[in-house]
């Protein structure tokens, strides 16, 4: 096993990338799904091993073809990357395991292999971003994952997905191209693309203005991809019309990976070398984070479609992650990073429950779901647990990261209390919009047309409950995500990979 261990960072990407084209050939019914699920499970096991290594404090580097950096292409898995790899591969595995019936319902058998192949390409691309230690490779992987995720979003039966995916494509490409401009400017000044090498060489650069411009382009470009308020307009429709299984996957990890690149680039490359850049970073992103939390939560309060409600809540959650990062403190970053993990658990469980609901209800408007809990009590109980975690009730995962965020805000002194108020207000709004769903499904009388509605398929229900129970487990025993997040935050602040 040890000989194989050294290759794990590369295998994390190579396995799904190689199996993706093979999946398109698996025409017999169900075979493509089985292959994709097995692959996803394998990548999850790889990421577990990598996370164990990161917990033990190893830096897991890899030199492609044995060429040493900065001339060869390097891969590098740090604690932050390992944390998100867990989220990514775990999210994909949960969604695929649970999603068989939902995929059968929404996508005709002939197109399923193609859809699942695009799914694996998203997985490969996003893993590639997380293991890569090279600015340009990150761009290429970002485009692989984006192009494939446009296919995922547009793969559903609802035609409204098409304008949504077109908008996503436009904004995603502009975001990636902005990132490319920023990388170009950094390359122009340093002559290297290896992130570790950029850190060293940038210290000799005398004219830092192009680097500052690069910081602007990279921040805005990745902000677009990460759906940072007010650049989030592509997200609600894209999440709403994606096939339900795809929503579980994308909502759990897609925006977080872009945030990973944004934070690693900004903290490691720019803040160490540009004078006063921490203050600029905080002053630029903190208001956006606050606005994101408040405005997106407020929109969710009045949204009538269940999936779109949760999508707006995702925009608000990106705000929390960014709020933690924009305090530029160990506590705040730890909170922000841990929130990526915890939010993925909460939103994953919620969207899994939505997928169960969608098996039986053709429309996900809240009015049409009245009394659904009478027919599907297990599904809706899992939904409530996910909702509690999203709100941040003690005993669930969401509480842990919000506690860190509040502690970090209080560290800031006077203005920090305003941030505490924002976090509390955001959580209260989360209580309100989750309550609207609970009120509709638990306390309203079901219509007569629901008489023959049964619980969701057993496998789907089991996976949903597993995700819901993970929320409680990681709320009571949060050492895994907190250890990785703290190490990741320390790395970002210390600047060493």
């Amino acid at each position, binding site marked *: 096993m040890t000989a194989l261990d050294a290759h794990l960072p590369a295998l994390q990407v190579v396995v799904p990338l190689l199996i993706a084209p093979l999946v398109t050939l698996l025409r017999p019914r169900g075979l493509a799904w089985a292959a994709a699920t097995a692959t996803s499970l394998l990548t999850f096991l790889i990421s577990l091993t990598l996370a164990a290594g990161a917990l033990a404090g190893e830096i897991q580097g890899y030199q492609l073809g044995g060429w040493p950096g900065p001339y060869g292409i390097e891969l590098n898995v740090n604690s932050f990357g390992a944390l998100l790899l867990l989220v990514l591969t775990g999210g994909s595995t949960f969604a695929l395991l649970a999603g068989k019936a939902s995929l059968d319902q929404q996508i005709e058998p002939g197109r399923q292999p193609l859809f699942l192949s695009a799914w694996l390409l998203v997985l490969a691309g996003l893993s590639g971003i997380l293991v890569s230690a090279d600015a340009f490779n990150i761009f290429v992987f970002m485009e692989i994952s984006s192009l494939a995720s446009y296919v995922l979003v547009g793969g559903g039966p609802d*035609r409204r997905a*098409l*304008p949504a995916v077109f908008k996503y*494509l436009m904004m995603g*490409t502009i975001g990636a*191209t902005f990132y490319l*401009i920023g990388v170009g400017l950094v390359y122009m000044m340093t002559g290297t693309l290896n992130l570790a090498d950029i850190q060293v060489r940038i210290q000799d650069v005398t004219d830092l203005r192009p680097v500052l411009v690069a910081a602007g382009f990279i921040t805005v470009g990745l902000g677009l991809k990460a759906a940072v308020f007010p650049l989030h307009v592509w997200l609600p429709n894209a999440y709403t019309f994606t096939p339900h299984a795809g929503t579980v996957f994308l909502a759990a990890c897609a925006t977080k990976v872009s945030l990973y690149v944004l934070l690693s680039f900004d903290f490691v490359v720019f803040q160490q070398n540009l004078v006063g850049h921490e203050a600029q970073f905080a002053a630029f992103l903190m208001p956006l984070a606050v606005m994101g939390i408040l405005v997106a939560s407020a929109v969710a309060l009045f949204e009538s479609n269940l999936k779109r409600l949760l999508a707006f809540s995702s925009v608000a959650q990106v705000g929390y992650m960014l709020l933690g990062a924009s305090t530029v403190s160990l506590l705040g970053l730890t909170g922000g990073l841990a929130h990526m993990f915890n939010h993925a658990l909460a939103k994953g469980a919620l969207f899994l429950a939505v997928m169960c609901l969608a098996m039986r209800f053709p429309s996900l408007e809240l009015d049409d779901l009245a009394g659904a809990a009478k027919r599907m009590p297990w599904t809706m109980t899992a939904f409530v647990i996910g909702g509690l975690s999203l709100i941040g009730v003690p005993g669930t995962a969401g509480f842990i990261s919000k506690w860190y965020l509040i502690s970090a805000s209080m560290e800031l002194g006077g203005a920090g209390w305003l941030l505490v108020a924002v976090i509390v207000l955001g959580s209260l709004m989360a209580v309100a919009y989750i309550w609207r769903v609970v009120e509709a499904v638990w306390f309203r009388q079901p219509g007569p047309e629901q008489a023959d509605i049964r619980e969701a398929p057993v496998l789907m229900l089991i996976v949903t409950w597993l995700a819901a129970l993970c929320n409680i487990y990681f709320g009571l025993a949060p050492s895994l995500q907190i250890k990785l997040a703290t190490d990741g935050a320390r790395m970002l602040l210390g600047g060493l990979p």
Partner: protein
Amino acid sequence: MNLLGLYHYWVFAVLLMIGFYAVVAKTNLIKKLIGLSIFQAAVFLLYITMGKISGGTAPILQKGVPDAIFSNPLPQVLILTAIVVGISTTALGLGIVVRIKEEYGSIDEQDIQETDRQ
């Protein structure tokens, strides 16, 4: 500051903004995609420009020319990759437009929004 001496970068900036304008302002989806292509092409030019040294040649060692000046070949290789990405994006975008035309009978953003509102 010799502003016009940096004309390569002006070309980059102007093209970038022309493309961006088309993406934002046009309602025809094909025109938006054309704008996106111009936008990306501008960035290709930025990369090509920065690798060029005046008087520089291709980076090939030649006998009898010990002190030749080479242009940096790496940006061109990078941009070859980016061009491939750009083509895939345009192709996928056009594919989506075809599907939109099939489903909505129009490729104008406003028409599509009105159809969805009904």
